[in-house]
């Protein structure tokens, strides 16, 4: 029973990480663009949702408006700033997007203040539901699982079964060639970046009721997203999905069961101190192993 519940916790965390990593891997893999400000879009999604929910009084409406706003913000950001950086090398991109993180953090401080916001849930999402006899799970976390799975399926269909998806995949394999074939590569990139931004915003606004909406909320989690795209293979949506579930599971199950395992060999005090440190290391250990064994990631996108 405990195992079922802890696995669900891990699965839910993994799906959330997938939403963040999917946008990152699309932008990195297809546009060859390192976007450190992806975490800022995650933060903006949460701030938009909190603001719009307060304005409209409806959680669902607030969330939908916030999604649109993040999509728009992503497109504007790409148009104003980022498209001038595509030709530059990665270090310039890292510097510029790091500057954007600082910009967004201070912009949020100016607009919303330093204290953070709350995004309260409607009552029907705050009750635990019985999923199998004897196991109760928070309704909101369950809804995260459902929404994220739906988005993953939608992404799969769009990327694998539509013309846009075909262009995106072609862009990932050979940028110059599809440009030469008369495809408007600039427009395609703007679309991809907007899609990535909306995914990041979705992750942020779904995480917001669980955590708080606060400045810098995207920075810690962005590191995990980078780990995931490295493990999964850069540019690969399928890789990002599997790696995200993997990382979410390892993180949660490590925290859940490692302390008890360690207590068998260490003193109780030493175990409770060492376990959280060790469980947060597990993910990076996994990444190191993947980098040694398969440097291109577990499920790399098609070769360039």
């Amino acid at each position: 029973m405990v195992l079922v519940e802890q696995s669900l916790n891990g699965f839910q965390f993994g799906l959330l990480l997938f939403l963040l990593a999917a946008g990152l891997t699309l932008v990195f893999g297809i546009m060859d663009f390192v976007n450190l400000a992806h975490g800022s879009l995650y933060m903006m999604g949460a701030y938009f949702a909190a603001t719009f929910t307060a304005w409209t009084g409806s959680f669902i409406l607030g969330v939908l408006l916030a999604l649109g706003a993040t999509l728009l913000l992503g497109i504007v950001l790409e148009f104003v700033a980022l498209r001038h950086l595509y030709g530059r090398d990665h270090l310039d991109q890292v510097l510029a997007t790091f500057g954007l993180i600082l910009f967004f953090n201070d912009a949020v401080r100016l607009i919303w203040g330093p204290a953070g916001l709350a995004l309260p849930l409607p009552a029907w999402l705050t009750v635990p539901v019985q999923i199998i006899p004897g196991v109760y799970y928070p309704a909101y976390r369950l809804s995260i699982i459902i929404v994220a799975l739906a988005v993953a399926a939608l992404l799969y269909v769009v990327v694998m079964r539509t013309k846009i998806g075909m262009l995106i995949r072609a862009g990932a394999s050979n940028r110059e060639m599809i440009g030469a074939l008369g495809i408007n590569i600039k427009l395609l990139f703007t679309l991809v970046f907007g899609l990535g931004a909306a995914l990041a915003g979705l992750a942020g606004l779904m995480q917001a009721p669980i955590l708080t909406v606060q400045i810098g909320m995207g920075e810690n989690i962005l590191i995990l997203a980078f780990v995931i795209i490295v493990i999964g293979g850069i540019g690969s949506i399928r890789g990002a999905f599997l790696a995200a579930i993997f990382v979410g599971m390892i993180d949660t199950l490590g925290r859940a069961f490692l302390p008890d395992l360690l207590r068998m060999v260490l003193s109780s005090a030493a175990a409770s101190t060492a376990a959280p440190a060790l469980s947060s290391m597990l993910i990076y250990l996994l990444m190191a192993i993947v980098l040694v064994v398969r440097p291109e990631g577990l499920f790399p996108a098609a070769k360039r």
Partner: protein
Amino acid sequence: MKKTFWLAGAMALALAQPALGADSIKIGFVSTFSGPTAAIGNDMRNSFELALDHLGRKMDGKPVEVIYEDDGQKPDVGKQKTEKLIQSDKVDFIVGYIWSNVLLASLKTAVDAKTFLISANAGPSQLAGELCSPYVFSTSWQNDQTPQAMGTYMNQKGVKSVFLIGPNYAAGKDMLAGVKSTFKGQVVGEEYTVWPSQLDFSAELTKAKNSKAESIFVFYPGAAGVQFLNQYAQAGIKAQIPLYTAFTIDELSLPLQKENALGVPGAQQWVNDLPNPENKKFVEDYRKKYPNLRPTFYGAQSYDAANLINSAVVAVKGDTTKKDAMKAEMEKANFKSVRGPFKYGKNHIPIQNFYLQDVVKDADGQLALKTVATIVKDSQDGFHDKCPMK
């Protein structure tokens, strides 16, 4: 070009010099002014500024100059800022420190330079014990004291078993050790989480729920407290297992925790409604000076720190080179604390009362913290025996 540069530099120095003249009292203030916990640092600064307003911005007739530095909640940055304030700004006092790990990293710099350090929040056990120093005073508490009061209250309520959750750093360990030292029931489980990066407590909450403990105790300061309470309520555990807290619900987190905090008790040495006249003045003037904000215990401790410094400066008639005389004066705690009764143990940690606070709806229908009872009177920390000072 180069010449103009040097000239400009020399002018800047010349201009800066008079303001930093020997005839002012210089105070360095290290706290967190950026990142997720910046609201705490702002509250401390607001309260310190209010105290200076109340003192006429002078101590014994000398103007007071405060230099605020941001530690970003990082021990290494806090140490650097402390060094900068002491070595290049040459401050007379250094105040602040929210986080125990930041304070522990910065402590040696202040003590070695014989600069008075007033901790306005952090209270690691080492500070009360083996690392106590003639140059270090606290206007807060030793970390263990507040959870010890909570443990005592849980005994009074007849709680039989508890599951403990806290962050894995100096203060987190002190807090959980504090509850364990007074709570007479059974400790069913004890979980530490990665600090400050871990914000999802689903694994720990699931464990607590399945442990069949009768109660949960947590210590999560700042935004983490909001996240813990949200998740505790969403998981439906609030209806099953009551929560007891230390430093998890305050005036900064309450507007974000909202109804989730209703009826969750906490222990504290200061609550906004304590009935002494100094406290009334502090709370009223704070709300006048900073509309829409309410002072927290962090602010109350900073307000006290300014008054403690003032007492020392007045006693030596503004001659801050008389360190022994200032130390002797501060040991008397010759000022009116907003928390009421306040005296120092030989390790310079306050001996004070701890109160039970609850979250209620006030007259305006807003959620507010309210004193319910006095849990312990004249509580002294358990580490003063280890302090070699006489």
